[in-house]
């Protein structure tokens, strides 16, 4: 008996590891051939329509630049734009394989077509699912039993991959019932369970922040400092989840039960219990009169007239694409103009287009990616001299320089250490390595938590990690499989060797100064000595600010 228990204890960790492997392997979706995009996937009508919204966004910005008396930065070159898009949409730098294909594509609309290609890549859906999970279910680990983060990721990835309308995705998360493994969307509500207790306040706060861009949760204890949120409004919102029932059979509602328990909260002053009726903080007419409370809440949140919903997702996607949301902090937006949509307000402008096109996330991303403001360079003469740097930044006249997320840094290092694209077609061992190493790396690099869209400078532990860690040793190492090894061994000459290293790591060709310094190091080297020079160069490029910052 005792032995048996010892055995179980001993193999338990192995079972967990095996389980995760199965999980990773099951993520091996049907291989998709990586092909060169031939034509745009949209219909002609849609494309013309899109041009008009992109045009209107462009005009909004040129007006602002004109007003500020500023010249915007020049359009960035296509390779830099390609890197920018790849980091934003796929979470890594492009592979050498992809760069070569891209460079051989000479047509003028290649960026648009490659953007479409990325959006249909499974890597996009998976990467975005993880970014969204941060604010949907939080960054903390959560309860293992009732909250299955991995299942939630996979589910959300599927929704993004199929481009399911965003309002439908949100309604599922708020209102669906079932078991967290079988209906992974219910993990949105299950994530707030701690030691068997449902934290209704957390759920209400998250609903308002994640879906409506409103920080109503500070009204939990006091009224909002500048917006008009009152404690009673918050309590009513929390009560919308009051009939939620989470048990061994999954997430359900008590509404059907005759003797449904009242939703009570303890008054902070009198310490007496008060019963709270479900209520929404504004426009109660958007909430249907019948149905289960969560379903009614979901309908209200995503109601076509609820512009906060559109504005919140636009600000969020803008933040993910520029590394900096249009309005900071990302989930505390000013109230929309009650009189109606304001075409001079960027969030309203893009939000209206988003809503009138069926809450299509990929279209939203394509629109922003096509704007001039997304495609300008991060270089601007004001950053070198003069006193205009502040206004250039305020008016988005140059692309913002933002610190890559830890997932992007490790994704890029791993991609750069391989010549071939690391994606769902890669061997499962490579994907498993990526899965586990990424978790370790993110922990050491410093997880940004839910609050990931604030601007930050680098830190010493990060510098040490990039310079001296096992990760750094492993991915700069020259072996027969690694990029460093293959480039050192196979590049026809020094020039090609240097050029390839730069392409793999920085997605650009070296400058003349760089050539003149680094070519000397390669000159006349053979075998091991040459491998070392290439390893050193990989190390250099991984530690360059250009590698670690989106630009």
């Amino acid at each position, binding site marked *: 008996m005792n032995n048996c228990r010892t055995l179980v204890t001993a193999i338990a960790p192995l079972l967990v590891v095996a389980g995760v492997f199965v999980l990773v392997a099951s993520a091996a979706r049907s291989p998709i051939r990586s092909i060169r995009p031939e034509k745009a996937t949209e219909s002609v009508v849609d494309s013309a329509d899109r041009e008009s919204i992109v045009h209107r966004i462009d005009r909004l910005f040129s007006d602002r630049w004109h007003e500020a008396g500023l010249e915007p930065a020049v359009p960035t070159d296509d390779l830099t734009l390609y890197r920018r898009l790849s980091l934003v949409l796929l979470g890594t730098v492009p592979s050498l394989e992809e760069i070569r294909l891209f460079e051989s594509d000479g047509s003028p609309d290649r960026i648009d077509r490659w953007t479409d290609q990325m959006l249909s890549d499974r890597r996009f859906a998976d990467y975005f699912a993880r970014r969204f999970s941060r604010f949907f279910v939080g960054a903390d680990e959560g309860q293992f039993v009732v909250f299955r983060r991995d299942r939630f990721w996979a589910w959300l990835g599927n929704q993004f991959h199929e481009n399911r309308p965003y309002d439908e995705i949100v309604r599922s998360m708020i209102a669906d019932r079932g078991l967290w493994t079988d209906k992974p969307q219910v993990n949105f509500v299950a994530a707030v369970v701690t030691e068997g207790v449902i934290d209704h306040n957390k759920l209400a706060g998250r609903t308002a922040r994640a879906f409506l861009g409103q920080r109503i949760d500070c009204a939990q204890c006091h009224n909002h400092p500048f917006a008009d949120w009152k404690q009673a409004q918050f309590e009513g919102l929390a009560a919308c989840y009051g009939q939620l029932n989470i048990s061994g059979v999954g997430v359900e509602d008590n509404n059907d039960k005759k003797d449904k328990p009242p939703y009570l909260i303890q008054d902070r002053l009198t310490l007496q219990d008060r019963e709270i009726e479900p209520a929404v903080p504004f426009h109660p007419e958007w909430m249907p009169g019948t149905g289960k409370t969560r379903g009614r809440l979901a309908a209200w949140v995503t109601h076509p007239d609820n512009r906060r919903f559109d504005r919140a997702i636009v600000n969020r996607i803008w933040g993910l694409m520029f590394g900096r949301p249009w309005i900071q902090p990302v989930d505390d937006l000013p109230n929309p103009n009650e009189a109606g949509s304001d075409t001079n307000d960027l969030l309203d402008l893009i939000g209206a287009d988003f809503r009138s096109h069926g809450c299509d996330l990929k279209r939203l991303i394509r629109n922003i990616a096509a704007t001039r403001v997304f495609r300008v360079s991060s*270089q601007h003469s004001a950053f070198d001299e003069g006193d205009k*740097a502040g206004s250039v930044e305020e008016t988005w006249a140059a692309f913002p320089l933002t610190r890559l997320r830890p997932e992007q840094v490790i994704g890029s290092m791993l991609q750069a250490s391989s010549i071939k694209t690391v994606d769902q077609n890669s061997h499962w061992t490579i994907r498993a390595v990526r899965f586990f190493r990424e978790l370790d790396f993110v922990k050491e690099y410093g997880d940004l938590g839910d609050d990931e869209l604030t601007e930050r400078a680098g830190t010493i*532990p990060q510098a040490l990690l990039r*310079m001296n860690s096992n990760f750094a040793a492993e991915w700069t190492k020259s072996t027969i499989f690694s990029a460093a090894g293959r480039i050192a061994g196979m590049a026809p000459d020094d020039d090609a060797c240097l050029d390839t290293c730069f392409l793999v790591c920085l997605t650009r060709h070296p400058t003349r100064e*760089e050539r003149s310094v680094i070519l000397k190091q390669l000159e006349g080297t053979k075998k091991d000595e040459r491998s070392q020079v290439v390893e*050193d160069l990989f190390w250099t490029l991984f530690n360059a600010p250009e590698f670690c*910052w989106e*630009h």
Partner: protein
Amino acid sequence: MNTIDSSRRDFLRLAASTLGLSFAVPGLDLRAAEQRGSERAKSFLTIWLGGGQSQLESWDPHPGTRIGGDVSSIKTTIPGLEIADLYPQSAEQLHHLCVIRSMVSKEGDHERASYMLHTGYRPEPTLVHPSIGSIAIHELPNGAVEIPQFVSLGDANFPPRGGFLGDRFDAYRIFNPGETGQNIKALVDQDRQDRRLKSLSVVSQSFMQGRKAKVEQTLHQHTIDAALRMMTSEQLKAFSIEQEPKELRAAYGDNPFGRGCLVARRLIEVGVRSLEVSLQGFDTHAKNHEGQASRAKTLDPALATLIKDLVDRDLLQSTIVLVTGEFGRTPNINPLGGRDHWPNGFSCLLGGGGLSSGLVIGETDPEGEAKQPKDPIEVADLYATILYRLGVDYAKEVITPIGRPMKFCAGQPIERFL
């Protein structure tokens, strides 16, 4: 820029050290380690009791009452003061510190309360306040220290953060005290390292074009330089304890917390400004007495040895020591024999660094009826006292990145401690 102007500060520090203006910056003397007594630049050490230590099983016992639990009390070196019998060694050192039995806060959740007890402010959604240790290194940089100036030892759940001052004022974390820390050794020999760095400066230069101001703001090169300085520093030795006598190591306790306290003393000797050593596991919602007693077995010898060691080396005069967690525990014992979270009238220890000693402040109701303690002490006032004693302008107003002016500390120093 509206944000804190750090590059200017760095420049001043650099100027001060190259021009020999050592009077311009406190604590620049390279021989800081040899100075003793009140002449030394001050350090601030927090012993963090994660989860919330029970005041009733430590510094504020009420044996034999309805709320007292299974605790007995013992005499201490402060006349008339008795503490829980779980801390016999600390009882012998207590006259070096003050006991506060009336700490009050409004936060009863671990994360929120840890924030409050690190920063002196309640959490706000739009702004992250810096911890007191971060403010200290921001205001009192020590140019002679090549290792991080704020070190957190142990596996704290909520380590102190730089908040709006910036991530580089976060505490540097040592997860396994006694070990040097992660990723300290260069991967290659000096020749290759030089080659790497030479290429790096060329590649960085190209990136600077058209982005100079922005790239400088990233502090990328600054962090690399600081990391390189640290990698080759003699001061790294302060992180290891092999050279310490066996008996002393045993007295601190051969466990991560004991080692953490010993490393903290070594770091103080090289001039590290802010430190936190954390001990987790005080969150005793069930079987409170057993839980608190088991933590005390680790805390008592380490704390007592640390205080004695600091006194023996004449370092306590220059080291402010604060022993606290995020809150205390309820007077009532729940059906599981546990005590729950209690931010109204919990205890902490404070002393050293020229603060008063031997004081006992505040009183809680032995019957557990009155919710508020007598002579309540607010967290912000406690921190104003500590900052004042460190020599920091505690009421200084800085403009935060969101453009809102904010005082380092909203409290007032408490005269009795000064």
